[in-house]
C-alpha cells in the first residue's frame, strides 16, 4: 500500500528548480528509508531542497517533543506519508502538580487533521497529553489500519475510551496505558475485543484499579499468538497469572499482578514451572503486594532478565539479596528504598552488568519517619556500594535523605560514564550532612568526571558555585532540573552561557530573576523549553523576552489575581505555530 501511494505522489511532485545532482528522487527516497533517527532526518532535510523533499516524502515517523511547537496542519503539509506519531504535551513539572489541570495539550485537534491527512495512520504515542473518551472513539473509527496506541502519563479518558479502541481497532497490536490517570469505570472494556481478534502483541493495563473479566483475558491471551508484552493489574492473582503464563510462554515482557497469598494456587512448583517455561522473558515488573514466600517462583524466569522493575514492590534487603543472584544479566533495576543500603550492597555484588539504577522512595512524605530522624531508606553508602560493583552504570535516579560530597565524588570516580544523573535529596536544601557544607562539590565532581552527561537533576543545598561548575564542565548537557537551589542570577546565567547543548531547563523555587531569564535571550530558540516557577522573574521581564524574541512563546500561568508583578510560573518554548489558540484563561501569552 505504501509503495503504491508513494509512486502516485512522486508523479505529482517533480521539483521545478535546477538540480544540483542527477541523482533520481526515487533512489534517494529508497535510501532515506533506512535513515530512522529523527535527528539524522532533520540533518538530511537541511542539505538542499532536493534532499529536503526526498526526506519529507520518505519519512514515516514524526517525533514532536512539544506539541505546541508546531501545528498539526504544518506537520501534514510537510510530511505526506506519516504512519507513526510521537507527541509530548505538558511541561514535565505537571507530574508534580505544578501545572493546573486544564492547561491544554489535548490531542483532539491533531486527530481531526490527521483523519484527513493520514487515514493510514498506524501508531500514536503520547506523553503527558489530554485524551478524552470522545477522542479515543474518534481515533478508533477514523483510522482503519490503526495498530499501536501508547499513552504514557496521559489523562482525560476512562475505561469507556478503552472499550472503543478494543471494539473498533481490528488490527490493533499494542495498547499501553502505563501510568495514565484514568477514570476507572470497570473492567468490561477488555471483553470488547472481538472473538476473532488475534493481532495483539502488547497489552499494558497495570495501572487500572478495576478487575477485568479473567476468562476474557485468558482467551485473549490464548488466541493472540504474537503476544510478547503483557502487563496486568493487581487484581490478577498468582493462580490466574500461572494460567496466563501457560498460554503465553513466548512472552518477553511480563508485568505480574498481585504476588501474594493465593489459596487457589495448588502448589508452588506449578507456579515455578509456569515461569520456567517462559524462556524469552527479558523484562519483569508489577509484583504488587509481594510476598517473599512466592518470590522464589520467579527465579527460573530470571536467567535472561535485563530489566527488573520492583518499584512497586516493597522488598526488604534480604529478599532482594536472594533474588538478584538469579538475574546475572540484569542491566536495568528499579527498586524502592525499602531495600536499604544492604539491598544495594547486594546489587553491587550480584549485578556486574548493571547500567541503570532507580531507587524510589516508598514513603516520601511520611512525617513520622522524618520525625524520628529515621534511617529508613537508602543513604550515601548504598550509592557507593552500587558504584563499586557496577562499573557500567550510566543512568541513576536516586532518592535519599542524606548525602555527602565525598560520596558523590567517589561514585562518579567509580563510574565516570554517567549520561543521566538524577539525585534527589528529599529534604529541601539539605547540606552535606557530615560537613554541613553545600552540595556544590558533589555536582562539581559529577560534571567534571562525567563528560558524556546529558541529563542532570540537582538537589540539596546549592549555591551559584554548583552552577558555575555545570556551566564550565557540562558541555554535553541537554536537560537540567533545578529546585530550591542557587544564590543569585549568576547561577542560571552560567548554565545558559556554558552549556551549548542545553535543550530543556526546568527550575522551581530558585532565586533567579529577570537578568538570568534575559541572559538566555539568544539560547531559547535552540532549546525545546524553559520552565521557571516560584523564581524571581517578573511580568516585565517576561514581556521584554516576548518582545525581543517573537518566535518564542512566552507563557505565564497566573493562578491568583492578587499580584500583577511577579510571574509565578513561566513557560518559554520555541514555536513555528505562533501563540496557542487553545490557551485557558489562566495562561497568558505575552
Amino acid at each position, binding site marked *: 500500500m505504501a509503495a503504491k501511494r508513494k509512486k502516485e505522489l512522486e508523479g505529482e511532485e517533480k521539483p521545478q528548480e535546477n538540480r544540483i545532482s542527477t541523482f533520481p528522487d526515487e533512489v534517494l527516497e529508497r535510501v532515506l528509508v533506512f535513515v530512522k533517527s529523527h535527528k539524522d532526518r532533520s540533518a538530511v532535510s537541511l542539505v538542499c531542497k532536493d534532499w529536503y523533499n526526498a526526506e519529507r516524502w520518505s519519512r514515516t515517523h514524526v517525533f514532536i517533543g512539544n506539541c505546541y511547537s508546531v501545528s498539526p496542519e504544518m506537520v501534514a503539509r510537510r510530511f505526506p506519508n506519516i504512519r507513526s506519531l510521537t507527541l509530548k504535551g505538558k511541561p514535565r513539572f505537571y507530574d508534580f502538580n505544578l501545572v493546573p489541570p486544564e492547561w491544554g495539550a489535548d490531542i483532539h485537534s491533531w486527530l481531526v487533521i490527521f483523519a484527513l491527512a493520514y487515514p493510514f495512520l498506524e501508531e500514536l504515542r503520547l506523553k503527558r497529553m489530554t485524551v478524552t473518551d470522545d477522542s479515543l472513539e474518534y481515533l478508533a473509527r477514523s483510522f482503519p489500519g490503526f495498530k499501536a496506541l501508547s499513552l504514557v502519563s496521559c489523562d482525560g479518558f476512562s475505561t469507556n475510551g478503552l472499550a472503543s479502541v478494543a471494539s473498533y481497532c481490528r488490527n490493533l497490536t499494542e495498547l499501553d496505558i502505563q501510568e495514565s490517570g484514568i477514570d476507572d469505570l470497570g473492567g468490561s472494556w477488555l471483553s470488547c475485543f472481538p472473538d476473532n481478534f488475534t493481532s495483539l502483541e502488547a497489552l499494558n493495563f497495570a*495501572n487500572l484499579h478495576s478487575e477485568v473479566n479473567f476468562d476474557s483475558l485468558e482467551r485473549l491471551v490464548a488466541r493472540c499468538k504474537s503476544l510478547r508484552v503483557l502487563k496486568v493489574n493487581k487484581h490478577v492473582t498468582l493462580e490466574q497469572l500461572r494460567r496466563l503464563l501457560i498460554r503465553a510462554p513466548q512472552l518477553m515482557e511480563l508485568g505480574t499482578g498481585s504476588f501474594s497469598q493465593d489459596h487457589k494456587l495448588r502448589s508452588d512448583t506449578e507456579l515455578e514451572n509456569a515461569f520456567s517455561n517462559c524462556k524469552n522473558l527479558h523484562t519483569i515488573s508489577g509484583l504488587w503486594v509481594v510476598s517473599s514466600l512466592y518470590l522464589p517462583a520467579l527465579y527460573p524466569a530470571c536467567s535472561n532478565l535485563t530489566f527488573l522493575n520492583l518499584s512497586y514492590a516493597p522488598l526488604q534487603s534480604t529478599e532482594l539479596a536472594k533474588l538478584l543472584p538469579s538475574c546475572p544479566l540484569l542491566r536495568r533495576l528499579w527498586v524502592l528504598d525499602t531495600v536499604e543500603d544492604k539491598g544495594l550492597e547486594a546489587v553491587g555484588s550480584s549485578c556486574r552488568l548493571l547500567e541503570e539504577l532507580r531507587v*524510589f522512595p516508598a514513603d516520601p512524605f511520611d512525617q513520622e519517619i522524618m520525625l524520628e530522624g529515621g534511617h529508613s531508606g537508602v543513604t550515601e553508602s548504598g550509592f557507593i556500594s552500587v558504584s563499586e560493583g557496577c562499573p557500567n552504570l550510566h543512568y541513576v535516579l536516586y532518592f535519599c535523605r542524606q548525602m555527602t560530597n565525598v560520596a558523590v565524588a567517589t561514585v562518579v570516580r567509580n563510574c565516570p560514564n554517567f549520561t543521566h544523573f538524577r539525585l534527589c535529596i528529599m529534604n529541601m*536544601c539539605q547540606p552535606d550532612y557530615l560537613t554541613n557544607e553545600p552540595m556544590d562539590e558533589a555536582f562539581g565532581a559529577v560534571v567534571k568526571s562525567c563528560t558524556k552527561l546529558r541529563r542532570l537533576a540537582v538537589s540539596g543545598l546549592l549555591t551559584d558555585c554548583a552552577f558555575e561548575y555545570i556551566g564550565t564542565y557540562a558541555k554535553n548537557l541537554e536537560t537540567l532540573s533545578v529546585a530550591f537551589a542557587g544564590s543569585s542570577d549568576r547561577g542560571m546565567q552560567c548554565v545558559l552561557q556554558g552549556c551549548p547543548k542545553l535543550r530543556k531547563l526546568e527550575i522551581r523555587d530558585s532565586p533567579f*530573576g529577570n537578568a538570568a531569564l534575559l541572559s538566555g535571550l539568544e539560547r531559547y530558540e535552540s532549546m525545546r523549553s524553559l520552565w521557571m516557577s516560584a523564581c524571581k522573574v517578573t511580568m516585565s521581564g517576561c514581556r521584554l523576552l516576548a518582545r525581543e524574541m517573537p518566535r518564542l512563546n512566552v507563557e505565564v500561568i497566573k493562578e491568583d489575581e492578587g499580584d500583577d508583578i511577579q510571574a509565578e510560573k513561566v513557560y518559554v518554548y520555541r514555536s513555528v505555530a505562533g501563540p496557542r489558540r487553545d490557551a485557558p484563561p489562566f495562561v497568558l501569552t505575552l
Partner: protein
Amino acid sequence: MSFPPNPNPNPNPRPNARDIEEERETEMSIETERSSTESEVSGLDYEETALTLGLPGGKRGFSETVNLGIKSSLIEARGDSSGDRSDESPDCNASVAEKPPAPKARVVGWPPVRSYRKNALKSCTFVKVQVDGAPYLRKVDLEAYRGYEQLLVALQEMFSCFTIRNYPNEERKLVDPVNGTEYVPTYEDKDGDWMLVGDVPWKMFVESCKRLRLMKSSEAVNLAPREARR
C-alpha cells in the same frame, strides 16, 4: 553578554524570620537587592524585586516562615527539622545539630514523586513496625503473609538481631541474643487498644491492625494476659 560580578554581594539573600513577618503585612513590600548593573544591562527599571523565597531553613528555622505568600509553592508549613541549612559563612555549623526534631514543611510537588506512584503505593496495607529502643521505623505489608508464623519470621529477618524463642504455652517472643532482652510483638487495633499479637484469627488481625510494636517483655505486663481476654 558578560555580567560583571555583583558589587553588592549578599551572601545570604534569604530573608530572616522578621523580614518575612513584615512581608506578610505589606503585600507589596519590596526589598531591592539587585545591583545597579542589571539596570544597565536590560534598561528596565527594577524597582520591584524579590520574590522573597523563604526557602526552608532561613537563618534559624522554618517555623516562622509560614505562609510566605508563595501560594504556589507552599501548602502548609509546620516547622523545621533538619531542613535548616548552613549559610555560606563557615561558622554556622553549630546551629544545625541542636535542632529539636519537628515536622517538616510540605511543599507542592516535593519531593518530585509522581502522583501516580504515590497513589499506587498508598493503597497497600502497610503497617509500621516499631521496636522499643531502635531509632527507626519499618513497614510491613500484612497482606504479604499467610499467618503469624510468617510474620514473625519476617520481623526476625527485618530486625536481624532477633531470634524467635518458643514457649510451651504457645507464646512466641523475639529475643535479642546479645543482651537476652525479650520483645513481645504487640499491635494497635482499630479502637486504639494495644493487644498482644496472636490473639485473634489471622484475617481479623490483618483487618484490624494499624501498627505493630515490639515491646520489651518487661513493659508488656500491662497488657492483659491472653487467657484473660474476652
